[in-house]
């Protein structure tokens, strides 16, 4: 049991070969920093810590409150997604990759499917492509809102968090209506989409855009012009363009350093060349610029969502090739979502060949000609690339996810060293790493 002291209890101390290790729990900081110890302290922060943006562990070497060295330790959320994909069919891979960067599931699904389609030499029908764009931009809005929300929370702006998650909830509700699930949708499939949007989707999308247009100005009032928010972010986490390029940074961090590099513009995919939108750029290369870019990108994404909704024309959402397209259409029956009764009737009662085809395609999957492709797209965090290798079989030889969080997180030391401890939090929040993507 604890002894009674005058003042706070001393921090627990443990002697190791590396020197004494203290467990500081609050109110006992003085025992660690008193005059008899030297100023250099190594702090371990995370992996379970509310301000490290997930299961990220930071090891900080401090002199007083100044960070002299910072390193990040990752791997706490490694789930072996890449390896698992090698033991599943190409279609099943979608359900795995959607869980990598869990804040950008549609981006993972789309990039993976674009890569599979490139290997197959097929192209998804127009309605599916437009729907992918619409979903991706909704997803981008949701992802950026989480970044603002968690970033706000980590810096103590709790109202920013409640507001951000409130708006993100709207995004998730809409995605649930459109795809059936809030997250991990597995909705984009090689060759198109799992199914068409439900009736009444257009109205829901219009409502959502209108709602966001009324809510977004609140962020300017709540955060953008707020003096404390600006003081915490301005000039913090500075990383200029040459540093960005050397460290392989893409996405809002690169654009905050003045380079308008957006995959949607540079190498348009999914017909992005048809859409009218701006690529917001800043030159301050600090956390505040990254924050402003994310808010601006939400506005641009809303524009794209509107345009995509207008472009949606009736048509198929899956390629016509029955060797690739999922055999069954889905419908909601008395016992929930499942294969349509017409399809069951056909394969069970009318056509043996259809049954064989259904069975083969679902259990065996389709064959993908050998070769390799790399497909990069612009996720909310930067260049999300899928490097797929096929040896000609029904399973991938290799699925490599070039996740922007993984690469961008390497900039943490460059942004933080020489600054204050509190600014490390701001820098990490502005990188917006999603550990599901970092560790895969």
């Amino acid at each position, binding site marked *: 049991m604890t002894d009674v002291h005058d003042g706070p209890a001393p921090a627990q101390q443990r002697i190791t070969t590396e020197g004494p290790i203290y467990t500081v729990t609050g109110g006992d900081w003085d025992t660690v920093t008193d005059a008899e110890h030297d100023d250099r302290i190594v702090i371990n922060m995370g992996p379970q810590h509310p301000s490290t943006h997930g299961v990220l562990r930071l090891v900080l070497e401090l002199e007083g409150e100044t960070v002299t060295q910072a390193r990040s330790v990752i791997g706490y959320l490694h789930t072996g997604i890449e*390896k*698992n994909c090698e033991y599943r069919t190409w279609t099943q891979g979608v359900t795995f990759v959607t869980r990598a960067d869990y804040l950008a599931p549609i981006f993972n699904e789309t990039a993976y499917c674009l890569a599979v389609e490139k290997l197959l*030499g097929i192209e998804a029908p127009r309605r599916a492509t437009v729907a992918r764009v619409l979903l991706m931009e909704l997803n981008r809005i949701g992802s950026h809102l989480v970044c603002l929300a968690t970033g706000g929370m980590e810096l103590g702006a709790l109202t920013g968090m409640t507001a951000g998650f409130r708006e993100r909830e709207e995004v998730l509700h809409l995605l649930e209506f459109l795809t059936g699930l809030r997250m991990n949708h597995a909705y984009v499939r090689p060759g198109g989409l799992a199914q068409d949007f439900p009736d009444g989707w257009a109205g829901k999308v219009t409502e959502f855009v209108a709602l966001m247009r009324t809510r977004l100005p609140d962020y300017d009032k709540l955060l953008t012009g707020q003096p404390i928010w600006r003081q915490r972010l301005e000039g913090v986490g500075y990383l200029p363009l040459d540093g960005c390029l050397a460290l392989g940074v893409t996405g809002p961090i690169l654009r905050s350093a003045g380079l308008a590099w957006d995959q949607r513009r540079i*190498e348009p995919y999914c017909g992005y060349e048809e859409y009218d939108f701006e690529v917001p750029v800043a030159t301050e290369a600090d956390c505040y610029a990254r924050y402003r870019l994310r808010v601006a990108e939400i506005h641009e994404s809303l524009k794209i969502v509107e345009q995509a909704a207008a472009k949606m024309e009736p048509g198929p959402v899956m390629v016509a090739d029955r060797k690739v397209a999922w055999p069954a259409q889905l419908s909601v029956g008395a016992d929930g979502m499942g294969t349509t009764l017409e399809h069951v009737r056909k394969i069970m009662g009318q056509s043996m060949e259809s049954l064989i085809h259904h069975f083969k395609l679902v259990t065996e999957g389709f064959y993908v000609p050998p070769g*390799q492709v*790399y497909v990069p797209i612009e996720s909310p965090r930067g260049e999300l*690339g899928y490097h797929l290798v096929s*040896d000609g079989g029904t399973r991938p030889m290799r699925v490599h996810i070039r996740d922007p969080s993984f690469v961008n997180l390497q900039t943490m030391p460059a942004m933080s060293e020489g600054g204050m401890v509190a600014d490390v939090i701001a820098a990490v929040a502005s990188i917006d790493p999603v550990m599901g993507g970092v560790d895969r």
Partner: protein
Amino acid sequence: MSETTGTSKDGIEPTGGEQSSAELSGADVAEHRARGGEAPQGGEIEQVQLDGVVVPEGGTRPAAPATRERSGMFGVTGSGDTSGFGGLRLPGHAPPPAQRPFGGWFDEFADDLGESLAERGVRGAVQQITIDRGEITFYVARERILDLCRTLRDDEGLRFELCSSVSGVDYGEDAAQRLHVVYHLLSMTYRRRIRLEVALDIADPHVPSVVEVYPTADWHERETWDMFGVIFDGHPGLTRILMPDDWDGHPQRKDYPLGGIPVEYKGAEIPPPDQRRSYT
């Protein structure tokens, strides 16, 4: 299997032409098969004279090792299977070398690269050039990868400022030079993407680190070491990154089991994924 062939050497006609080898890539299959398939000899690189400049002529000989051969449609071996599927043989796929003209920006780029390498005295770097699905791949001799990357980054006509990704591929226990290290480079100035590929023997998985040219490769190379056991010589701190420090083995090698336990569902036992029937 010791041969890495694009052919079926034992006289069995290759089947399943749709999936096999080079047909889809548009290369001259017969010629490639007649010549190709032999495992590449390290350092045996042809360079031809072109307008007085030494250019690594990637289109001349295949250096990329083939993938594993696939056999038996349902993975059946040594059973009484009389369906014939068990005897199915599909040759491994060796990426065919590209033939001039490559088309698009590839010709000009290959010439520029050849000149720049010659200027800097980097010889024998490129073993083969493959163009497939609109992407260009350079198969690189591993001793030259660092020089090649430095040339690609620094030369004014090339300017590959960004290294998108470095990762490994394991082509399976049957393949010769089964470990590959794959680099995806991006030139923001010229808006070009290329892929570099280094094939390694499993017994000698060393490759020079490119961290001094592309600092971003630090974590990529650590991950490739962690997952595939590729040793990047000259890396500033090649430690595990995703797996715990004291982990044994390299999980993404093909001979490393996926793991998992059988699951009982409605009375039937479903084996773990890596022990389920494989169709290829």
